[in-house]
């Protein structure tokens, strides 16, 4: 397996792969963020491919890749909406966990222990590539995003989310989430690998994709939930890009 994923990063996630699906367990922060991520993903896919979300199985006929699928927190909703889903994870231990859960949910999902680079090399092509909270963990972001470009069909859509790099994101994601709230194990994130929205747009363009939208994902401590923001991209943010060539 050739990979741009830093082996030290993969190991960290392997230690966290047990109870993915407990909304009050270890992955509570991801479960809390999930509705907000799904709102963005579903709206972007519906807009790009002209689908009506109020209809049953609106993503029927779309081939979708979920990179870094973990326990399947995004793969399962996408399959439920009718997409043909391939979930890829570089952490081998996540695959059986995700497979068992998909079976429990009565969903058919093709989970594979592989990487974006290997799938691209094998000539796999998709209408949608979900690239959520992965790019800040890879060793070579440009090589990785180029693989994402190669994985898309012409007119295909990549959704990519990550963390901004500034004092506030350090305070929130490292000090807040890892040290104070203990939402994430210490060392989950390496702040120096965080990417600013402008840097990410440039990387996406360099990888041959056309970035078309970006929004912030903001945690509201009063309502204790995440929501999308047009302006506040200061910590978590998400982007949509199209392959034109």
């Amino acid at each position, binding site marked *: 397996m050739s990979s741009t994923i830093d082996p030290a990063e993969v190991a960290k996630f392997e230690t966290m792969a047990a109870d993915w699906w407990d*909304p*009050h367990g270890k992955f509570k922060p991801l*479960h809390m963020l999930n*509705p907000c991520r799904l709102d963005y993903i*579903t709206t972007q896919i519906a807009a790009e491919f002209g689908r009506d979300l*109020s209809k049953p199985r609106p993503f029927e006929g779309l081939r979708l890749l979920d990179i870094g699928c973990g326990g399947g927190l995004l793969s399962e909703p996408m399959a439920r909406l009718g997409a043909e889903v391939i979930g890829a994870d570089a952490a081998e231990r996540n695959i059986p966990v995700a497979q068992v859960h998909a079976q*429990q*949910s009565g969903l058919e999902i093709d989970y594979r222990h592989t990487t974006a680079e290997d799938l691209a090399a094998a000539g796999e092509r998709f209408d949608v590539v979900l690239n959520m909270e992965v790019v800040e963990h890879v060793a070579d972001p440009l090589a990785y995003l180029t693989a994402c470009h190669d994985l898309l069909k012409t007119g295909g859509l990549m959704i990519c989310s990550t963390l901004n790099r500034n004092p506030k994101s350090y305070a929130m994601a490292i000090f807040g989430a890892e040290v104070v709230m203990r939402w994430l194990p210490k060392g989950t994130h390496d702040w120096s690998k965080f990417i600013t929205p402008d840097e990410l747009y440039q990387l996406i363009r360099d990888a041959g994709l056309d970035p078309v939208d970006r929004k912030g994902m903001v945690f509201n401590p009063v309502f204790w939930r995440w929501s999308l923001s047009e302006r506040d991209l200061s910590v978590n943010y998400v982007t949509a890009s199209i392959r034109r060539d």
Partner: protein
Amino acid sequence: MTQDADILIVGGGLNGPALALALAQGGLSVAVVDARPAQSRAEERFDGRAYALALASVRVLQALGLWSGLRAKAQPIHGIRASQGHAGQGPSPLMLGFDSSEIEEGVMGQMIEDRHLYAAFLDAMQAADGVTLHSGARVVAQETGPQGASLTLADGRVLRGRMIVGCDGRDSATAQRAGIKRWGWDYGQTGLVCAISHERPHEGIAHQFFMPPGPLAILPLPGNRSSIVWSEKHATAEAIGRLTEAEYLEVLRPRFGDFLGEIALEGQRFAYPLRLTVAESFVAERLALVGDAAHGVHPIAGQGLNLGLRDVAALAEVLIEAQRRGEDIAAIDVLERYQEWRRFDVVRMALGMDGVNRLFSNGNPVMELIRGLGLGAVNAVPQLRRYFIREAAGLNAAEPKLMQGERV
């Protein structure tokens, strides 16, 4: 596993059908299990029961497409007058008056008879795609698991779905079967409900009299008719229940004086023991409680149905949005969004209404002075007045889309 419907609703009263219609509008399929036969609930004759719909509840009915057919049968409430009184003396001079001209939204609410509202729900359920009504069917068992939920009916049929919603009232068997405990207390009072016809027009004004034995409300119905809600201590209420119609009217007359002229009973008399009952949890594995099944409040301001429709609007929005995101609609973190949305509001309303009732149900002259001052103070401060009017019209809490008259 074959599935009969996405959502299995237990209870065909008013909240159950409202939720069924809202969910079906959002593309989910629903089975409604109602213990009573359909025709017995759609009788044309007025039985004396009516509801004070807050403006927000009217908007829910608008969004569900029911209001255009109901509008002509409803009585708009143009104002509310509240005052203190003593039995035998009639109401004391006006202490607190709310007028719909003080809020931008126009009328403060609508009075609608149960027979019209229920018939509209029944027709709409029959016409709706994705709603199956099982009338005259009793649930004897329920099961929930990681993959789905099922109801077993008395005739042996089993209905399967993704989750169960209990809309089966304050003694909710759905909640009991799920092992959900309740807290609350008895008010020591019985609510007496009837409808009267009267000589003079009510001009669309609702009256609320705070009397030492308990509050009495006169709510305007179309024509020269009004719905009466009052409360008495259990023993007194029982004695009143044994009275003939003529004797009943003799007890009722002095309680609100003669401003509506001569009165006569219309339909039946109803008596409900007043208890506050709140479920310890509104949700469980693949299960949610709505309306009185989640919370039965003192019906002092007709808030029972209004709170129930707010639950309906919130749960429908949470489930439909989850469905459109591709989430498992019955996952516990999805259901907890509904609970978080509603629980604070319900507990605040339950305790708030209770406080108002206790404050005004006391014969102590010192308390009466304080009450007088309290009412006077509310009357004197415009912001507080507007708050009370908006609260009574149901316009203060964070609004689900249906409560704003919008489809989800």
